[in-house]
């Protein structure tokens, strides 16, 4: 009997070829990667102008006010940089979480706690252990804020690793919990006992715990330099270290990472802890460099801002700087815009939403301006699992 020939191929492929990713020329891809966010911002500004006009105000005047407020004088520029400083830290944190496939909307709470802990150590520590030289006190204060943020980020990370609970809801819940805790403490045990003080805030921190100003008469402080340094550190960490490699792996394909032996649970916790640490550092820097105390309400809105920045930067650490500058400029210029054109400062939030929209729905921008695709779209969602 004739031997059965054995074509030993087993089950057929699902379809002759998964359409393989076409190689887009590198230069064109890079150009598009830069052009897209710029065009997204431009489109958002145009759309925002339309909204202003619909509400009966002058968009050109509004944008003129925005420009004056953010960039038209040394003081304005300094203030923009001041605004941008915490944005860099929180943007880096969210970008880092994105690399790990995680959505950290908790920057607000992490920042608030970082600021609180930093302020507390800033004013209370000399009273407890005696006078401290700046070279000890300042780093301690910054470190404490960083650790507080890290702890607050680790909690949702641990919950996700242990129970699978999605970090979107938990980070938002912890935002509210953190803000309530800060409110309680600022109104109570940590409140400035000075009888002339009527608002919820801590006493001023010691001189040794302050970041130096970078120029006389301006509020620009050394925190900006620290932000630039951290950008380099995060970039190096993500792309040159083994930890960064592991974080990117669990973000790109957690199943394969786990099968290859990576400790998935531990990496989840570490990623969110690092993300929170950066937000906590942002809060500490604000306290040590700008306000020299912690005050109720200064941290509102940072959560979504950080997400917008990270998305605008396409989660690239180096892209966080221009994105943070942009949002800082918008926030800073808003007051002048309101003064000049009667457009409420909340418009900046609308602009932020529009920028987010056009960055996320890049296909809209691409279609408008006829650009080719610059790589796979940003997709993080894997549902609630």
């Amino acid at each position, binding site marked *: 009997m004739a031997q059965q020939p054995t074509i030993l191929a087993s089950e057929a492929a*699902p379809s002759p070829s998964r359409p393989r990713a076409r190689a887009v020329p590198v230069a064109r891809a890079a150009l598009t990667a830069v052009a897209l966010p710029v065009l997204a911002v431009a489109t958002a500004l145009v759309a925002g102008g339309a909204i202003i006009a619909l509400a009966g105000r002058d968009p050109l005047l509004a944008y003129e006010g925005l420009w004056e407020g953010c960039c038209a004088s040394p003081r304005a520029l300094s203030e923009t940089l001041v605004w941008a400083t915490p944005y860099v830290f929180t943007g880096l944190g969210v970008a880092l979480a994105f690399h790990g496939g995680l959505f950290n909307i908790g920057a607000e709470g992490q920042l608030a706690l970082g600021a609180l802990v930093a302020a507390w150590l800033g004013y209370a520590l000399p009273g407890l252990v005696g006078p401290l030289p700046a070279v000890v006190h300042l780093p301690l204060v910054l470190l404490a804020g960083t650790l507080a943020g890290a702890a607050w980020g680790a909690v949702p990370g641990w919950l996700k690793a242990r129970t699978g609970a999605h970090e979107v809801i938990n980070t938002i819940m912890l935002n*509210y*919990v953190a803000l309530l805790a800060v409110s309680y403490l600022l109104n109570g045990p940590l409140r400035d006992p000075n009888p002339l003080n009527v608002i919820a805030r801590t006493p001023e921190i010691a001189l040794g715990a302050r970041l130096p100003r970078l120029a006389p008469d301006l509020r620009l402080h050394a925190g900006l330099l620290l932000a630039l340094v951290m950008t380099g550190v995060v970039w190096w960490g993500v792309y040159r270290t083994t930890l960064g490699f592991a974080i990117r792996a669990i973000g790109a394909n957690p199943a394969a990472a786990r099968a290859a032996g990576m400790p998935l649970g531990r990496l989840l916790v570490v990623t969110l802890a690092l993300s929170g640490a950066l937000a906590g550092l942002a809060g500490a820097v604000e306290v040590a460099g700008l306000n020299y105390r912690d005050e109720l309400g200064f941290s509102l809105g940072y959560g979504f801002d950080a997400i917008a920045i990270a998305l605008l930067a396409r989660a690239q650490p180096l892209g966080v700087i221009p994105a943070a500058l942009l949002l800082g400029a918008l926030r800073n210029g808003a007051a002048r815009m309101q003064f000049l054109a009667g457009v409420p400062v909340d418009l900046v939030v609308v602009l932020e939403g529009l920028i987010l929209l056009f960055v996320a729905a890049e296909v809209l921008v691409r279609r408008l301006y006829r650009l080719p695709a610059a790589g796979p779209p940003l997709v993080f*969602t894997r549902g609630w*699992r």
Partner: protein
Amino acid sequence: MTPRRLWLMLVAVALIVAAAVALGREQMAAPAIVASMLRTTLQVATPLTLGALAGVYCERAGVVNIGIEGMMLLAAFGGFVAALAAHAALGDAAVGQSLAVGVLAAVLCGGLAGAFLALLCVTYRVDQIISGTVLNVLAIGLTGYLSRQLFFQTGMPHAPGVLPTLRLPGLADLPLVGAVFEQQPIALAALALVVLTHGVLFHTVWGLRTRAVGEHPRAADTAGIDVARVRWVNVIVGGLVAGLAGAYFTLESVPSFEPLMTNGRGFIALAAMIFGGWTPLGAWAASLMFGAAQALQINAQSFGLAVPSQLVGMLPYLLTMLALAGLAGRSRPPAADGQPYDPHEADT
């Protein structure tokens, strides 16, 4: 979603009410505490129930919707403004009609927000969590901006009133549970929608197709179902329901609008949906549970609780986290939840 978990949630509600009695019996009589807690629970659970139902519609069709908070906020503001405008046009004699117009406008705002979300998530296949975030940010921005632009000069006005409480005579006079039969219209609508959604989802053709699209969109596609259309309709319906939740805030709860007044309720509603196993009944029971926690927080002052208000205020949020953690991997969302569907991609 098992009957056991449903009972567990109702037991949790009972426990929270019992805790309230224990804490407040120095200040008030126990029956009064129970009645007050039940009434408040049902009230504050209303937006949670509606928000969770909105989530059920969207997610059963496979679209993750974290923008419920934004939908509620937009609807709250839109309904508020519409009620004011109607009142200005119709005069004091027609307060009821003005409020009705407001509710309608709120629902429509929710529907528009749903259409926006569907455009992003279904047609353009943008990442769904990012789409929800865009909706939330735009909602916060637009409502803040418009409320300040419109009312800056004049100060924030009050709505002509709140929706009236409807009483079921006889039953409403019962001790303790009488409060259950004395509810405002949106609260009642929420209960009706729970039943309606259950019927639609599990006993109609439309519900079967919706669930198929959420579990295995390619199977539904090959069976001849238009996946995109099913998702579009469900997301818009979810938006309409979320719009009703928004109406609660400015037309049933307090007759005014405040920026950020939803205060995270949209996310708690999401947690209620998850904890309720993506079913209407489960969503309702979980909303009652979270509502009871909020009721405890609201009534804490009148119970003479010595704990600072902020710490009590944490209760709903902590309970939400606890509930989600307690699920510990036992939650089973629709299998294709969160995955954009591309009919032309080989092998999704």
